[in-house]
């Protein structure tokens, strides 16, 4: 069908208008507001001790939660794909749970487990562990919310590469680790990398779950998203905007990596094993990108 010229322009206007008013204009506006009086005020706002600590804490969450979920994700994907078992469907369902749950509910669940009246809270505090309102609780929240990404990205790639090369390596005398490092991992690396990018984005921006378990104590348990919210609520708009810009820039970098990683993950020409099943999507992507 060749739509009439007016229909084409009508649809174009609707799509661009919607995206512009909902996405572009608000994001552009916050950039404008931040740099309205030059680069000085936002830099100053971001170099205050509380802001620097919030950035440090956010990066710390990424540094802990992302590796933990990556190791778990790859291991879990290998198990789900390579070892048929009745219970796999249950494991798969549990892995999806974090995304069916509101971040606030995740926060509440950890609060109930590790709070003063919780299941583990009293015992742990007797042993000298403070989970709630401190870093361990925030780490647990970050791990919970970002758990499924690496598994979900790795499973389809593992299914597609098959086992022939792994079996060949094994026949030629490679042990399990050699097979994994030299054959399996290179073949699935873009899928894993894409999962890592998504995990990072989620951990960087997590607000709901962390706000419940952290207590949001400035300079102690305040991540960058919490810093933004609190600054805004305390009418320190300059700090809120500057913090939001830092997060937005991190998000834009993630977006860039997502579009590169997503394409690579689907084309996956890099591994030693050509991936057969995904040619349609790869072609579609090329078309779409042209």
């Amino acid at each position: 069908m060749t739509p009439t010229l007016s229909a084409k322009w009508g649809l174009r206007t609707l799509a661009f208008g919607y995206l512009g008013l909902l996405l572009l204009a608000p994001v552009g506006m916050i950039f404008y507001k931040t740099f309205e009086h030059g680069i000085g005020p936002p830099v100053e706002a971001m170099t205050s001790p509380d802001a620097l600590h919030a950035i440090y804490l956010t990066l710390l969450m990424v540094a802990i939660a992302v590796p933990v979920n990556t190791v778990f994700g790859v291991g879990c994907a290998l198990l789900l794909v390579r070892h048929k078992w009745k219970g796999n469907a249950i494991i798969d369902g549990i892995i999806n749970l974090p995304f069916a749950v509101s971040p606030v509910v995740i926060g509440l669940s950890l609060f109930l487990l590790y709070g003063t009246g919780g299941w583990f809270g009293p015992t742990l505090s007797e042993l000298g562990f403070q989970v709630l309102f401190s870093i361990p609780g925030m780490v647990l929240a970050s791990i919970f919310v970002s758990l499924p990404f690496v598994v979900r990205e790795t499973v389809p790639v593992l299914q597609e590469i098959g086992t022939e090369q792994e079996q060949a390596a094994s026949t030629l005398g490679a042990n399990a680790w050699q097979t994994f490092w030299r054959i399996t991992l290179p073949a699935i690396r873009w899928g894993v990398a894409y999962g890592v990018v998504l995990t990072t984005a989620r951990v960087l921006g997590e607000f709901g779950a962390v706000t419940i378990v952290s207590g949001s104590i400035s300079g102690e348990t305040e991540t960058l998203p919490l810093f933004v919210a609190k600054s805004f609520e305390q009418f320190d708009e300059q700090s809120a905007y500057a913090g939001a810009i830092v997060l937005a820039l991190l998000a834009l970098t993630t977006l860039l990596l997502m579009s590169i990683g997503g394409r690579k993950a689907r084309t996956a020409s890099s591994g030693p094993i050509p991936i057969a099943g995904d040619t349609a999507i790869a072609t579609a992507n090329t078309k779409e990108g042209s």
Partner: protein
Amino acid sequence: MEGHPATIPTAPPRAGLRLPGVGAGLGRGLIGLYLSVIVLLPLAAVLDESLANGFSAFWDAVTGDQSLAALKLTVVCSLIVVAINAVFGTIIAWVLVRDEFRGKSVVNALIDLPFALPTIVAGLTLLTLYGADSPFGVNIAFTRVAVVVALAFVTLPFVARAVQPLLIEMDREMEEAATSLGAGGFTVFRRIILPNLVPGILAGVLLAFARALGEFGSLILISGNIPFDTEVSSVFIRSQIESGNTSGAAAVSVVLLAISLLLLVAVSLLVRWSTRGGDSASFYTRVVKPLAARIGFGGGPS
């Protein structure tokens, strides 16, 4: 892997070729333990707390005036938002697939911005443009309109991304045949194109609805969190935690959780329905799986 012959002595059959370092049994144990500590035990604690004072207390907490008002607002706003998404998501997908213009790849990448942008930043950006200091003079802050706008922002990619691959793959011949038989542009769209896009639109709508139900970060600054007016369920849960009513918070949480699980089931039923007959699992592999992976929302067995 147990059945694979060990032709070389250094590669014993139970070496765990697929799962290096540990056998499948131990691997399952470790994964089970990890999932229990991270996911299952916390959620069990919520379920336990919601019933801590018996079922009638649970029911009272859910049907209390304030919690019911919040739940109604959440569901109604989510329904409005998915309806908006169904229309604009389809239009955006159409423009991205069938239209040609400069900078298309940039617009295509931009669609994912709401997935990447932290929710608190999303709320703040909307408040900057449509709040009290709006340069347009449009102040929607602390109104129900703000709730809808914020939810529309965070759920924008779902339908567009679900419809896009279906449009790319659609056979143009049927449309051409219809046109040559005298069908107008709108008739072709309604009779030929739209029926083919319905599964994608539905999948996107269900996933967007699940996301909207639990949304918190983007609403906290812009909605004003006014009880009986702009307070959604997730915000209500937080206010109950802060005032020490954890069993009330847990009861509403269980309701949200139950609705989300129903939506998960609906997505997998949709997959089964749309892949019935001979046309393999192409809808699932092309539409639901990539989308589900991207937003981390599972839509069926792996």
